[in-house]
């Protein structure tokens, strides 16, 4: 079979919708278009039933009660609701004062967590941004050391979107429970890929989105614990009182049906899929780091998601490299690929040097990634790195035995 190009290796950015998900959604655009809020006719009941089913499907994936699932527009909204909603609910002092409460998060969280926390800091809360170690894994010990008397919320991602590393979430959740602190996790990269049991792990709030799990874009969910303790939140979107008042707005019925179906498929297929992707990722990492000298895997070698590889290739720049492998859709931590012209704050945050951030590629595999595609990517990337090194003054210097860290660069 001929390989169809370009090859998609950016599943950490988004995933295609599973055709089974699309099929489940379709009737809800046309025939079953009702508003779940219409309590007095068939159209409304159909919509309500569909939402109930989706809620059960999501609850089974998370290991929670369906009453604990709040549908949102995606993980960004879920994070905003969880973080701002919990901070405002559990504040030590009212708005307008300082010392309203302490929040713990980490410097390499997604912006959808960092920015809400930063806004809260402006509004009188305090925050600690934990600095990750070079392997990227946040441990319970680090959180323990940062906890204060006035800590009201800990928000840490389950797995990192750029490097794929997994934080010690169950241990951190337990620690928070012991201290009576609310624990939220942005599990956008984790849910649907790895087994999740919020009950067993004692998680209070958990965010994720549909489009990372082969569902549609524009829909997500927030798990909100109802017992032991009952977590309360100040709603961030006011209106018709949908989602038990947590999130007003007419239900995105097609999206919710899609999210539910996507969750169900992930629950049933996760184990086999994870094993397959993990094998693929390891094969790619091994092949590339063997074929290319001065290359390194970013993030912890084992404590990582099955499908996300992040590798830095010394002496070549990420955007230039992506241009050379234009038939592989992937991403880079290079400054040139970001609107801000700053290299990835995640890779910088690991303290491994800006240079490695500039030279990194993230390759994330998914449900339909084939061995043939992986072979193609390995061959193309190897070829491209060698080609670019022929053009790289840094590689020449390296071969001449010059230590690049001792060179006095003409800073631009």
């Amino acid at each position, binding site marked *: 079979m001929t390989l169809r190009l370009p090859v998609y290796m950016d599943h950490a950015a988004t995933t295609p919708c599973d055709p089974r998900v699309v099929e489940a959604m379709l009737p809800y655009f046309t025939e079953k278009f009702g508003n779940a809020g219409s309590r007095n006719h068939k159209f409304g009941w159909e919509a309500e039933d569909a939402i109930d089913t989706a809620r059960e499907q999501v609850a089974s994936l998370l290991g929670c009660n369906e009453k604990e699932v709040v549908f949102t527009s995606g993980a960004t909204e879920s994070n905003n609701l969880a973080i701002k909603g919990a901070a405002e609910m559990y504040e030590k002092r009212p708005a307008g004062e300082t010392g309203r409460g302490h929040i713990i998060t980490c410097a390499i969280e997604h912006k959808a967590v960092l920015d809400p926390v930063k806004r809260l800091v402006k509004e009188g809360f305090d925050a600690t941004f934990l600095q990750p170690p070079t392997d990227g894994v946040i441990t319970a010990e680090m959180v323990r050391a940062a906890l204060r008397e006035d800590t009201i919320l800990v928000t840490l991602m389950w797995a990192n979107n750029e490097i794929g590393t997994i934080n010690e979430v169950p241990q951190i959740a337990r620690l928070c429970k012991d201290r009576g602190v609310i624990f939220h996790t942005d599990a956008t990269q984790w849910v649907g890929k790895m087994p999740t049991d919020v009950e067993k792990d004692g998680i209070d709030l958990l965010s994720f989105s549909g489009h990372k799990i082969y569902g549609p874009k524009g829909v997500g969910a927030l798990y909100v614990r109802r017992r032991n303790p009952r977590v309360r939140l100040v709603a961030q979107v006011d209106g018709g009182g949908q989602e038990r008042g947590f999130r007003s707005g007419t239900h995105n019925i097609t999206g919710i049906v899609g999210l539910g179906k996507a969750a169900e498929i992930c629950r049933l297929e996760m184990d086999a899929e994870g094993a397959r992707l993990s094998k693929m990722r390891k094969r790619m990492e091994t092949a590339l780091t063997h074929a290319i000298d001065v290359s390194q895997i970013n993030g912890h070698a084992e404590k990582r998601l099955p499908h996300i590889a992040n590798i830095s290739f010394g002496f070549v720049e990420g955007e230039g490299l992506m241009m050379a492998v234009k038939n592989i859709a992937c991403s880079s931590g290079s400054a040139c690929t970001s609107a801000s012209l700053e290299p990835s704050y995640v890779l910088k945050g690991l303290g491994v040097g800006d*240079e490695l951030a500039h030279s990194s590629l993230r390759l994330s595999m998914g449900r339909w990634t084939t061995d043939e595609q992986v072979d193609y990517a390995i061959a193309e990337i190897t070829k491209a790195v060698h080609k670019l090194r022929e053009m790289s003054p840094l590689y020449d210097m390296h071969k001449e035995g010059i230590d690049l860290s001792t060179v006095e660069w003409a800073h631009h």
Partner: protein
Amino acid sequence: MAYSDKVIDHYENPRNVGNFGTTADVKTRKDIGVGVVGAPECGDVMQLQIKVDPATGRIEDARFKTFGCGSAIASSSLATEWLKGKTIDEGLAIKNTDIVQELSLPPVKIHCSVLAEDAIRAAIGDYKAKNGIPASAPEHADAH
């Protein structure tokens, strides 16, 4: 971001890639001017070398090596093309804006052209210094 055809052409078929010897070699050669600008942690480093015919004062050959994005590689490739055959003073007249125009660089990539102009100035400056030619009046790229 979509690149212009000219950037893609220079990126895929870079002109004059290479050098006239190792770092140590070219340092001692009076007919070679070397400019290395940028820094690895900034994501781009350009190395430009010019070979000048001492009899005519013309740049007879130019080579580059660049660590950087597609625009940085294209800007330096273009610079070597333009430098060949020019006198060193004519070379100094190349402006980053000329490179921006020729390659249709988008605003976020203007710094690549500035870096190329800096590399030209650095290489010519090195040649002048090695040969005791006084540096011309200091001029700076206006896009800094």
